[in-house]
C-alpha cells in the first residue's frame, strides 16, 4: 500500500480499503468472479489510474471505464465537419484544447491549423465571444463540446451573444448528455455491470435524480462521487454496501458540491437554448436516441450548423469506419482493456493517436499509457 501515504488522509484511505476488503469478501467477489463497477466520468478514470486505486482495492473489484470522455466519443464525421467550417475563408475557429488532436477521417484540427486555417485554442466560450467582439469583420465559431458540465457555459454564452445582438458568432454544437449512453450500456446484453460511480461535476449541474432509472428500472446501485482518492474509495464502499444489503439506490457521496436538484440557473439556460436531437452518434457506441443536443430555432442565428449549411444528417450519412485494426469500440464499452488493442503503444500513442481514447488524459488508453510505468511489475519500481 505504498501510494496511500501520498493521499491527503492516509488513515481514512486505509480504513476505506479495509472496509472494501471486508465487504467484497462478504459478498463473495473474487478475481475470477469480480464485482464490476463502471466509473462513468473520464476524470474518475484518470484519478483511478493516477492513484493506482484499481491495484489498492480488493482483487474482486473490477473497474470498467465508462464513456465519459467527451472528446473520445466525438464521431470522426463531426471532426471532419469542424475542419470544413474552420477552413472557410474569414472564419476564426475556436476550440477547447482537448479537441485539437482528435483524428478526423482526413485530419485533425491541429493539422488543419498547421495547413493555414485560423484555429485557436480557448479556455472558455466567453473567450470566443470576446474574439467575435474584437473582430467584427470575421466569423467566429466555437466548437461546443462536452457533457452537462460545459453545456451551461455555451448556453449562457449564446444568451449573452443574443442580448448583444452579435452577428458574427456561432456555436458548432456537439453537446451530449450522460444518462442516455448509460441506458444503452445497461441494455447491452454483453455488458455485465454491478454498479456505477456517478460523475461529480456533471451531477452538480443536473442533480442526482437524472440517475433514478438506473436504480429503479435496472436494479443497479449508483453513487455520485468526488475526485479525491478517498472520495472514490468511499464511493466504491457505498456501492458494495448496497450490493451486500440488496439495495439499489442513487446515493450522493459528493453532497458538499452536488445539490440534489442540480444548478437551477444552468438547467434553465440549457432548456432555453437547446433541445434534444432525435439521436446522436457516439464514437464506439453508435447512434443513441436523445443523447445529443442542438440549438433551438429561436437561436438559429448562433447555430453554426445553420450558418454553414452543415446540419446533422450529413454526419450520419457519411458514417465512417474506424481505422483498420483498432479496438476503440470494444475498449469504449469496457469489453477489453486498452492493452488488448494491437495498436496500443505501437501505432497508437498520445503523440500519434489513432483513436480518440488516446487523445485526452481522460481517455482510458491515454490513462493506461501515462501511468504505464506504475503498472509494471513491482520489482521494476
Amino acid at each position, binding site marked *: 500500500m505504498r501510494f496511500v501515504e501520498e493521499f491527503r488522509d492516509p488513515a481514512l484511505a486505509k480504513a476505506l480499503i479495509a472496509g472494501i476488503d471486508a465487504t467484497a469478501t462478504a459478498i463473495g467477489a473474487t478475481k475470477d468472479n469480480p464485482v464490476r463497477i463502471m466509473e462513468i466520468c473520464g476524470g474518475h478514470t484518470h484519478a483511478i489510474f493516477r492513484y493506482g486505486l484499481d491495484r489498492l482495492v480488493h482483487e474482486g473489484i473490477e473497474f470498467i471505464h465508462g464513456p465519459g470522455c467527451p472528446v473520445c466519443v466525438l464521431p470522426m464525421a463531426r471532426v471532419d465537419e469542424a475542419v470544413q467550417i474552420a477552413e472557410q475563408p474569414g472564419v476564426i475557429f475556436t476550440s477547447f484544447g482537448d479537441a485539437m488532436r482528435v483524428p478526423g477521417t482526413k485530419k485533425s484540427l491541429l493539422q488543419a491549423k498547421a495547413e493555414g486555417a485560423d484555429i485557436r485554442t480557448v479556455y472558455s466560450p466567453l473567450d470566443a465571444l470576446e474574439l467575435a467582439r474584437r473582430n467584427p469583420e470575421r466569423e467566429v465559431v466555437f466548437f461546443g463540446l462536452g457533457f452537462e458540465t*460545459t453545456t451551461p457555459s455555451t448556453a449562457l454564452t449564446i444568451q449573452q451573444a443574443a442580448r448583444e445582438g452579435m452577428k458574427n458568432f456561432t456555436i458548432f454544437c456537439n453537446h451530449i448528455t450522460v444518462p442516455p449512453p448509460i441506458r444503452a450500456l445497461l441494455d447491452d446484453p454483453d455488458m455485465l455491470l454491478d454498479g456505477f460511480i456517478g460523475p461529480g461535476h456533471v451531477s452538480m449541474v443536473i442533480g442526482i435524480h437524472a440517475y433514478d432509472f438506473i436504480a429503479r428500472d435496472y436494479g443497479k446501485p449508483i453513487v455520485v462521487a468526488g475526485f479525491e482518492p478517498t472520495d472514490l474509495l468511499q464511493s466504491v464502499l457505498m456501492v458494495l454496501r448496497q450490493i451486500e444489503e440488496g439495495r439499489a439506490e442513487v446515493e450522493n457521496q459528493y453532497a458538499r458540491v452536488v445539490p440534489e436538484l442540480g444548478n437551477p440557473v444552468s438547467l434553465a439556460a440549457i432548456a432555453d437554448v437547446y433541445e434534444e436531437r432525435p439521436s446522436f452518434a457516439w464514437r464506439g457506441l453508435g447512434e443513441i436516441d436523445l443523447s445529443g443536443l442542438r440549438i433551438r430555432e429561436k437561436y438559429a442565428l448562433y447555430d453554426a450548423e445553420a450558418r454553414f449549411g452543415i446540419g446533422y444528417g450529413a454526419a450520419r450519412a457519411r458514417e465512417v469506419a474506424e481505422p483498420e485494426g483498432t479496438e476503440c469500440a470494444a475498449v469504449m464499452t469496457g469489453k477489453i482493456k486498452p492493452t488488448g488493442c494491437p495498436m496500443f503503444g505501437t501505432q497508437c500513442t498520445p503523440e500519434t493517436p489513432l483513436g480518440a481514447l488516446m487523445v485526452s488524459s481522460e481517455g482510458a488508453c491515454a490513462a493506461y499509457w501515462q501511468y504505464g510505468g506504475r503498472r509494471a511489475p513491482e520489482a521494476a519500481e
Partner: protein
Amino acid sequence: MCLGIPGQIVEITDAARMMARADVSGVKREVSLACVADGGPDALVGRWVLIHVGFAMAVIDEAEAAATLEALQHLGEAQETLAQMAEGERALS
C-alpha cells in the same frame, strides 16, 4: 475541460453581466457568476467557487477548495487548466 478548478472571487468587474475577476492559483481570470449569484454578485467577493470553462458553477468552502486543488494538481489537471487559460488570453490578441 470536464473538471472544474477552484478560484477565489477578487472583485466584480461587470455587475450587469455578472462578471467577476477570480484568482485561480495566482492567475487572474474573468469568470461569469451567472450560475451562482442568486443573492447578487457582490456577496460573492472573497468566496471560493468551482470554475468550469470560465463559469463559476458552485460555491465551495476554503477547505474544499484546497482539497480539490490538491487532487487536481496530482492529476496534472490544475496545471493544464492554467495553461489553457493562458492560451485563451493569447488567442485574443
